[in-house]
């Protein structure tokens, strides 16, 4: 029977991960994500899992990559400064196709900024932080329940597509307590493993474009490298192989957008003004839309649950036809850059930014709409 529990966002991420089968956690404390480590330190021994506090965030991401190659489902959690340090390892995980999940709980930046204040300033970094062409999945929870659910989904997607998945949360959700419903069992996905040793080519793929790579220690003798590699797993500097690899890494995700992308539209059909937002900001939007509607203003909301891959097409379709689109976010304007690209000149795109460490409240939105005469 599903049970209801009051949890903090960070706890929900940890419990969601455990429910999804995560049995290895490596991390380094940092506000506002540290509670994930603290919960894992307590919980892992109870489920015969491994908790290890590493010497830094670089070691943390590399340790989960190692554990992932050894067959574990894995998680690490951090915030901006640690996420910056993890970027090289993140690209490595993309390249060798190691299923890993990273929580980045956003705080105010840049640099150490304001460690206990909320922001949504790592949005673009979550897509472009590491060097080189790469693709990954980024989810954005906006509640504690979703922190739990999306973590399960993140783990499953990481396994299914052998890709890093980032959960881009924030200080508010990390520390918010809400009652959540926990199912007895959660749907889990396990990575596909190769059937037999004969003819085993770790990076050879079928139509799914996702390789069935053996876990280390199971007799398949796989070779992993962050260098460009052929189906054999061995390095090559062959341009054709490189192009094929990089293209497959893209297409294995971009060809599965139906499965990966979740957008939540609310009353956009007849809207005159639609808000496009993500994460905690969508909560203020939801309330503001209610109020606007009661005031007779046709408002709607599109919430990006999946931030990346970012599909211009899907967002265009899901957003409805409101002539005015407002993009509220807790940064100086990042999502709005993408939204502008999506809609070209066809709509009026209005950024609404707050960078003082507080949330965008329903009142902020209502005032903005009034002031800007939207």
């Amino acid at each position, binding site marked *: 029977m599903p049970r*209801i529990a*009051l949890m903090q966002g960070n706890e929900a991420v940890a419990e969601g991960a455990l429910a999804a089968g995560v049995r290895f956690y490596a991390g380094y404390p940092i*506000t*506002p994500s540290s509670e994930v480590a603290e919960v894992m330190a307590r919980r892992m021994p109870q489920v015969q899992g491994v908790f290890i506090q590493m010497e830094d965030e670089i070691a943390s991401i590399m340790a989960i990559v190692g554990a992932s190659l050894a067959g574990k489902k894995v998680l690490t959690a951090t915030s901006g400064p640690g996420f910056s340090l993890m970027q090289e390892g993140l690209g490595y995980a993309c390249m060798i196709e190691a299923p890993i999940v990273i929580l980045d709980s956003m705080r105010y930046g840049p640099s150490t900024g304001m*460690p*206990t204040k909320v922001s949504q300033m790592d949005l673009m970094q979550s897509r472009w932080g590491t060097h080189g062409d790469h693709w990954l999945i980024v989810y954005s929870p906006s*509640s504690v329940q979703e922190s739990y659910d999306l973590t399960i989904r993140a783990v499953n997607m990481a396994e299914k597509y052998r890709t890093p998945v980032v959960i881009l949360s924030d*200080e*508010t959700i990390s*520390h*918010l*307590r*809400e*009652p959540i419903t926990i199912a007895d069992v959660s749907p889990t996905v396990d990575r596909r493993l190769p059937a037999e040793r004969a003819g085993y080519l770790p990076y050879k793929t079928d139509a799914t474009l996702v390789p069935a790579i053996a876990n280390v220690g199971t007799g398949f003798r796989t070779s992993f490298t962050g260098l460009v590699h052929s189906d054999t797993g061995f390095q090559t500097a062959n341009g054709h192989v490189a192009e094929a690899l990089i293209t497959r890494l893209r297409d294995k995700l971009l060809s599965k957008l139906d499965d990966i992308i979740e957008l939540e539209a609310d009353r956009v059909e007849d809207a005159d003004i639609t808000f496009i937002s993500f994460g*905690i900001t969508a*909560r*203020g939007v*939801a*309330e503001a839309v*209610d109020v606007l509607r009661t005031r007779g203003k046709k408002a709607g909301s599109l919430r990006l649950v999946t931030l990346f891959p970012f599909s211009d097409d899907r967002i265009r379709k899901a957003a409805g036809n409101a002539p005015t689109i407002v993009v509220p976010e807790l940064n100086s304007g990042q999502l709005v850059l993408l939204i502008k690209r999506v809609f070209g000149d066809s709509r009026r795109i209005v950024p609404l930014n707050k960078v003082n460490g507080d*949330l965008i*409240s*329903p*009142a902020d939105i209502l005032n903005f709409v009034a002031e800007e005469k939207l």
Partner: protein
Amino acid sequence: MDNGRFELRLTGSGGQGLILASIIVAEAAIAEGKVVTQSQVYGAEARGGTTKAELIISDRHIAYPKVTDPDLVAALTNEGLKQYGGGISRKTVVVIDSSTMALPESLNEEACKTLLALPIRNATVEKLGSELGLNVVLLGIIQGLTEVVSVEALRTAVSLHVKKQYVDLNMRALDLGIEMVRESATTGIRI
């Protein structure tokens, strides 16, 4: 509880157990089938200083999770009230601890629904022997004032958070709070 929604803010200094208090009310409310969101402010990374804990209790989904229009604000320090007194309106019941706090200049009966000064700390020390239980006394006061959760639910929630040997003490603390409200109603020690 306007349209099935109740917003509570507790403020004081770190270590007074206000966050825990808000969690206990949250759990009691959940047990009664309510929806809640509980949050708090973190200061700079170092400890101490002024804190605030917030709780919204509602019959239905809560979108924006932070208190914007509080039904009850309880402050245990002047600094807390100064920093986190925002949003107090004619609908707000304000409780202050008269044992440690001066009468707030900025606040008066006009600015809120009720302004109640109770000697919370003194009463706690006097009746329970020490400051331990201060936050549970406050819980009693909240219950007494608002009945946003039932006493039974609150008792259960409190007992889930304390060691066996302290259950009694805490139940007495709860009762003390409820009693203080009752008394204040009869004696009318409103400001």
